[in-house]
């Protein structure tokens, strides 16, 4: 029997990025005793990497903006696969969430009349992104962090203890969501099984409600803009608890990541570079994006360079340049140019601001980009073009959730918000919609988790409790890498092979044969991962941490590969060379990944079963926001007649 410390909380939030912190703030303000648990130090979450801004239709720069326009842009960007109710709530609530940040001390860049300035971004019809230079994510996380500190200060004044009602467990990892039901999950949430990275000590946070806000899965890919934390923990925790994942085939490759030097390959180059006037050129010096405007967007984008250039100053009478197409289009275009032999020396294309803006303005508008290229690549972006190429950036798929409450499907007490939740962005996310997503649905998850916890703390059935047996199982699972036999696999090697597999076989352009091959390799990696072993002891041991994260990455990678193989069309973040067109018949189809139940003992066996589900019909008043001619391009035949 494993003796572990148990603590009682009302709500446990897993992840301390934008969504997690916003959820924690809401839950605590609703009276729930809330614990936040995160793998890094408090305030280091991946949200700090977000650069461009927070999309919210405040209409500060262009008064024509409103939630309906934002909703339309979001649906178009997601190729209508979005969970429309989420897109609606998101568009409606985003402005309030941004304004709220100001009351907590955030300092956004201002318009001349003192309101929050908003900038242009790909796929957004109007300047919509509230921003602070190109470090908006940092401002967001710091503001939420400081709001948490403020709540803790209030608790200190009241109870003499900063952590009386809101505590951050930093540098701790959750390996299992604990439930009170049968052995294979599906029961009510009872808490989380965790370990402290610093000491390796296990502990259990008992709570009736758990909010997963763990972010994405990018660390399963070789070229990625994501940090080491993005190992799909929340996705895997939900699956293991019995909650399905939705549309995992949609992985966004950001068109502009650094390509050189190799050690920084994948690091993000913000879309603001293009929003502020940067242009993409191939090795012939041609602005190739004009050749890649797809039919559905033909009327919305400029046909000539002259018109595109005029748009920056006169957006009402000109159409935007095609560099500002949604990210999936731009990423594919760059990929094609490089394949056609018109790439830059290091296998990307050129992104140029140096000939478009004075140096002083570049340094003011894009300070961290200037800094990043200067420091890491020795490139002065005010004098020469950057070399950029696609990089794995975001997963649109995620845990299937209820639009209004952020509750997962089938696991009472389990909630999910932010990148880990699926549905909101459909098949492709617009830049700037992520930060607003974190705030809108982070708050909703916190709100409903607190409500659920309140009900269940006082319910006749009592607080759900995790059995000692489940805790023992979780402990044994976590300690397995220390007991590996001779010839144990090195977790770092396994991780590198996994990244190559996903990058090469389930990457930006996909083919059926390659994905089938990927599934075979993943099965092989699972077998080897079951033998992964580590050196040393439990105290701050990165090899051990990686060995534990491997389980999650393998599980999530299997979902991505399986769903990608199933969806025989190209849509948003899912591009099939063998099925190049968007197929309207696939529009109302969601692919759900469910765990194979009971979990097979053989590591080579499939862990994931795919289920097709039909999407909810879009509400008529929302459909009415679009022109008939546009809907015809997206909706399936039968939907048009409904």
């Amino acid at each position, binding site marked *: 029997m494993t003796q572990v410390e148990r603590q009682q909380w009302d709500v446990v939030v897993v992840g301390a990025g934008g969504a997690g912190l916003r959820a924690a703030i809401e839950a605590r303000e609703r009276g729930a005793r809330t614990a936040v648990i995160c793998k*890094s*130090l408090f*305030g*280091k979450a*991946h949200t*700090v*990497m977000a650069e461009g801004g927070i999309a919210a239709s405040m209409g500060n720069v262009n008064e024509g903006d409103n939630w309906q326009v934002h909703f339309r842009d979001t649906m178009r960007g997601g190729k209508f696969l979005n969970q429309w109710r989420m897109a609606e709530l998101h568009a409606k609530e985003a*402005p*309030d969430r941004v*304004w709220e940040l100001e*009351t*907590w*001390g955030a*300092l956004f860049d*201002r318009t*001349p009349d*003192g*309101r929050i300035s908003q900038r242009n971004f790909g796929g957004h019809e109007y300047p919509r992104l509230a921003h*602070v*230079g190109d*470090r908006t994510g*940092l*401002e967001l996380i*710091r503001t939420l962090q*400081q*709001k948490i*500190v*403020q709540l*803790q*200060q209030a608790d*200190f004044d009241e109870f003499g203890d900063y952590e009386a009602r809101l505590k951050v467990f930093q540098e701790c990892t959750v390996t299992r969501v604990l439930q009170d039901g049968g052995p294979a999950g599906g029961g009510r949430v009872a808490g989380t099984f965790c370990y402290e990275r*610093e000491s390796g000590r296990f502990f259990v946070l008992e709570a009736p409600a758990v909010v997963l806000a763990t972010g994405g899965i990018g660390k399963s890919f070789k070229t990625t803009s994501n*940090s*080491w*934390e993005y190992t799909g923990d929340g996705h895997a925790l939900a699956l293991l608890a019995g909650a399905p994942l939705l549309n995992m085939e949609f992985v966004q490759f950001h068109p502009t990541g650094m390509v*050189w*030097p*190799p*050690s*920084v390959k994948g*690091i*993000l180059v913000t879309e603001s570079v293009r929003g502020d006037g940067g242009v993409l050129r191939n090795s012939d010096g041609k602005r190739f994006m004009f050749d890649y405007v797809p039919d559905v967007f033909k009327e919305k984008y400029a046909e000539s360079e002259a018109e595109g250039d005029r748009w920056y100053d006169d957006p009402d009478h000109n159409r935007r340049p095609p560099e500002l197409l949604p990210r999936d289009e731009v990423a594919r275009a760059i990929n094609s140019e490089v394949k056609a032999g018109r790439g830059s020396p290091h296998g990307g294309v050129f992104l140029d601001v140096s000939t478009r803006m004075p140096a002083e303005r570049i340094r003011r508008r894009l300070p*961290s980009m200037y*800094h*990043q290229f200067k*420091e*890491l*690549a020795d490139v002065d972006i005010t004098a020469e073009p950057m070399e950029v190429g696609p990089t794995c950036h975001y997963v649109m798929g995620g845990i299937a959730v209820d639009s209004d409450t952020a509750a997962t499907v089938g696991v009472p007490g389990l909630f999910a918000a932010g990148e880990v939740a699926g549905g909101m962005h459909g098949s492709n996310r617009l830049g700037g919609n992520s930060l607003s997503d974190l705030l809108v649905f982070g708050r909703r998850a916190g709100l409903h988790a607190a409500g659920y916890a309140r009900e269940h703390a006082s319910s006749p059935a009592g607080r759900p409790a995790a059995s000692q047996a489940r805790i023992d199982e979780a402990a044994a699972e976590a300690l397995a890498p220390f007991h590996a036999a001779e010839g144990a696999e*090195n977790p*770092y*090697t396994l991780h590198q092979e996994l990244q190559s597999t996903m990058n090469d076989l389930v990457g930006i352009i996909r083919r059926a044969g390659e994905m089938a091959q990927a599934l075979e390799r993943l099965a092989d990696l699972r077998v080897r991962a079951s033998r992964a072993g*580590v*050196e*040393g002891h439990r*105290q*701050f*041991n*990165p*090899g*051990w941490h990686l060995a534990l994260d491997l389980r999650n990455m393998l599980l999530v990678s299997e979902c991505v590969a399986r769903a990608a193989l199933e969806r025989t069309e190209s849509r948003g973040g899912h591009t099939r060379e063998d099925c190049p067109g968007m197929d309207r018949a696939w529009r109302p189809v969601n692919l759900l990944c469910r765990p194979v139940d009971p979990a097979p003992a053989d590591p080579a066996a499939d862990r994931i079963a795919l289920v097709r589900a039909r999407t909810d019909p879009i509400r008529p008043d929302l459909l009415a926001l679009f022109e008939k001619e546009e809907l015809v391009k997206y909706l399936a035949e039968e939907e048009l007649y409904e």
Partner: protein
Amino acid sequence: MTTYDARFRIWRGDAEGGELRDFTVEVNDGEVVLDIVHRLQATQAQDLAVRWNCKAGKCGSCSAEVNGRPRLLCMTRMSTFGSGETITVTPLRAFPVIRDLVTDVSFNYAKAREVPAFVPPEGVAPGAYRMRQVDVERSQEFRKCIECFLCQDTCHVVRDHEENKPAFAGPRFLMRVAELDMHPLDAAAEAGLDRGRAAQEEHGLGLCNITKCCTEVCPEGIKITDNALIPLKERAVDRKYDPLVWLGNKIGRRSGTP
């Protein structure tokens, strides 16, 4: 692509003790020190503890000391060293060590809690905040801080004098006080909180002797000393050492903040 073998000395150990260990490791074009530490983990020292996250100089996790200077490992390029040079990497030396390159930075989180938060102005609804760009720029500079705590590490007030830790917030959190004091809508004064005075009386501003190491190590290039600490000292002078103000306070005719 050029590749060579570099010599590294990396401190390994924990609170009980430790030593600098020698490693020889491959280095490729364009790499940074953190890449080398990762290569060591993957090939020679699987359990070498290091804290890192974004690897792009944005999160401030991988703070350590390289050749005795506080640096972000991910922003220290190998090309800044000669290929024959031995590179020494140690944990931050102002904080308690946990293991290898990882230190206990809880001092900083404790100090963060001691700075009273932003006080929203009364009667201004969310969405009705109006601030001019020129008024927010000073505080925005300080909000570029990525909380890598290199300034806290290098500051001799606590680095060399453990006993000062309770009394001294350190450059990062004095800068936070300055940030709030310069925030155009912070209503602390109206709520009876004098941030300038608090900086001196509660956060140990007087211990700072403006020797500028915090500014020297800041990876974000924030002018901590010139733009935050010295202005705070001047603000403290306004409150505490200006005879006219003192007289005004005695007579009770002093108006609110400008």
